[in-house]
């Protein structure tokens, strides 16, 4: 018994410095940012020696979502969401596809692996600069068709002002409920496909919410006093392309490592069981390395939520069409000296990232417990 408690003391003492450091410099500062976001620190005199800070509750948050003048931030937020979704689909899709090609042992596999992984090693500033040139209105990608004698593209990858998939922020509440309802129903259908007992719960919840929103959606409070359209700004396609280019090699490496780890016997067994190459990946290999897909989603989504330098390099910090909350946070805090509002944006980003990461952590801990 004595030795155990001694061990514990030792362990505690050894851990103390890192606990203290992490406590102060990570959690302490998050706490401080949160506190700042609840004040009105900013404007004239924000940089004085003893700036005036008054507690204003959640005013900054409220203003970001429903404030008359915050529509720029709201578009940035919408951009970030589209950006995350397309980056996930693009980088995982392309990475997976290349990984499958390489997993089938083409000649010079090692060479191609390096080629595809190479973009990862570039800084975002370099990637951004290269792609800004490639996507310039009358250069790079747009002139490609002329090499085969066709008309050049005239798509404005980074400077288009078009916006598609628009919705009205006024109705954000009913829109959110609709999304929740659809997500629940999709999960329910997916569980149904897997013949899980829990499918019914999800389906019923989703359908009930859907019906309620359909019937009583009009009674939900409006977010704004007037119509405000937000959607997918086509100018962000260039940025999405560049990020996919940079990260597909990374997802490829993740997937390839996963595929290589699957024993040849399993593949042989699947072949003998009559699986085609496609079915092998669909039913055996990809489900087997699901943890890799989950890690890729986590990593890519928090990268896309924090994206700053690439956008900065490609379209500059002030381009409203391709704005991003992280840039907005920077400009608000350090150019406008509106520290409280910047802190509120930071907290929102933190919260969004947590939304992705916490379920992952919970499920991985739960799996560990199951295995133990």
């Amino acid at each position, binding site marked *: 018994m004595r030795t155990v408690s001694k061990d514990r003391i030792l362990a505690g003492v050894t851990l103390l410095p890192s606990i203290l450091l992490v406590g102060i410099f990570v959690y302490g500062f998050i706490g401080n940012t949160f506190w700042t976001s609840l004040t009105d620190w900013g404007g004239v005199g924000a940089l004085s020696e003893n700036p005036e800070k008054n507690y204003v509750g959640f005013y900054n948050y409220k203003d970001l979502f429903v404030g008359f003048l915050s529509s720029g931030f709201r578009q940035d937020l919408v951009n970030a969401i589209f950006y995350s979704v397309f980056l996930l689909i693009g980088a995982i899709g392309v990475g997976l596809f290349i990984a499958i090609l390489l997993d089938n042992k083409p000649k010079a596999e090692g060479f191609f692996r390096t080629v595809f992984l190479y973009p990862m090693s570039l800084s975002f500033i370099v990637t951004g600069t290269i792609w800004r040139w490639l996507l310039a209105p009358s250069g790079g990608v747009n002139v490609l068709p002329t090499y085969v004698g066709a008309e050049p593209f005239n798509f404005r990858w980074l400077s288009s002002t078009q916006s598609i998939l628009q919705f009205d922020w006024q109705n954000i509440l009913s829109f959110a409920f609709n999304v929740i309802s659809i997500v629940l129903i999709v999960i329910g259908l997916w569980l149904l496909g897997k013949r899980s007992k829990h499918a019914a719960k999800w389906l019923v919840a989703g359908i009930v919410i859907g019906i309620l929103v359909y019937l009583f959606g009009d009674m939900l409070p409006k977010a704004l006093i007037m119509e405000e359209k937000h959607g997918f700004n086509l100018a962000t396609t260039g940025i999405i392309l560049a990020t996919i280019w940079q990260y597909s090699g990374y997802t490829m490496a993740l997937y390839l490592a996963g595929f290589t780890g699957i*024993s040849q*016997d*399993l593949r*042989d*067994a*699947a*072949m*003998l*069981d*009559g*699986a*085609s190459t496609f*079915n092998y990946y669909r*039913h*055996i290999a990809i*489900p*087997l390395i*699901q943890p890799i897909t989950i890690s890729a989603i986590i990593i890519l989504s928090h990268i896309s939520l924090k994206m700053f330098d690439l956008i900065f390099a490609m379209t500059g910090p002030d381009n409203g069409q391709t704005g991003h909350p992280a840039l907005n946070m920077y400009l608000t805090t350090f150019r406008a000296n509106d520290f409280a509002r910047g802190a509120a944006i930071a907290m929102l980003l933190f919260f969004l990232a947590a939304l992705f990461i916490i379920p992952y952590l919970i499920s991985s801990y739960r799996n560990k417990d199951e295995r133990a």
Partner: protein
Amino acid sequence: MARVELEKVFKRYGSFETVHGIDLAIKDNEFVVLVGPSGCGKSTILRMIAGLEEISDGTMRIGDRVVNDIDPKSRNVAMVFQNYALYPHKNVFDNMGFSLKMAGLSRNEIKEKVEQAAKVLELTPYLDRKPAALSGGQRQRVAMGRAIVRDPDVFLFDEPLSNLDAQLRTQMRMELKKLHIKMKTTTIYVTHDQVEAMTLADRIVVIKDGTIHQVGTPIEVFEKPKTVFVAKFIGNPPTNIMAGQVAEQGGAKGILCENGMFLPFPHETALEIGRKVLAGIRPDAIAAEEAVNKFSPAWQYDVQVLFSEIVGGQSLLEFDINGTSMVAELDGRHKVDPGTTLKLGFDLDRLFVFDPETNLALDW
């Protein structure tokens, strides 16, 4: 169900040849066991039959079809792997049903077939479990279940029992045999466990370094080994081999071994005097105590015991005879002190004679 025929089948990896033109004809319903030391090419041959490995040269037939260029899934063979190769993320039901799903059967058909196979293999209570939650024996059974649901023409087994403990191995071995008696599917089974080979096989194929040394029933392979390798590899402890030459002593023709031991031939032979040979005698062809008296005095020898050990109801005796050490497997329990002199009887009716140049059995 189908015949399997290999005609001059070669396997080369680049310039490195591992299988050197083997010929093998396996009959319908037959249970054939491939044995041989590690690295001799057993798995390679099996994988070539499955289509997982291309054959570099020769012809392979399953049923009446030449399958050289037919891919694994169209050969209708099922294989059980040494490490089972179960799909870790699928439960037992889905593991067993995967091939049926790939074949496009309806859910109900799959359910029916899987449940039937599960019943035969006593797996019904485990259908919902993932492989990780099964014991080694149960996993082994799932691997077998996955093979039998498809009702294939040929079963291929690559050392399926080698990961099990001795007791379970014996039990599974018997179940395998029963399964074969029931299903009658042509089976090719790789092992390096002789007991498995002897008990399961209709015919044994002994392989060394990518060539076939002998094909025969277990008794033929045991009693009439065609090469020195087979005599040594099959049977445990291995056959005692002594170099010598054909000679005449006291009017009898026999083998005069280099250590001075004379082994008279049990029957007339045309082997000429002076011919160099290798003599082989199985440890279980040697008897001690009263059993010695079954043999004529010419088949009895005085030996010096080096070491003895009791193995269940039998004893192994290592002894020295004029400077050569040999092993005898005796019935009954004999604990003999080292150094004791003992009279042993050799059953020379079971004498093997090989050519020392070619290592092949002589016709004598």
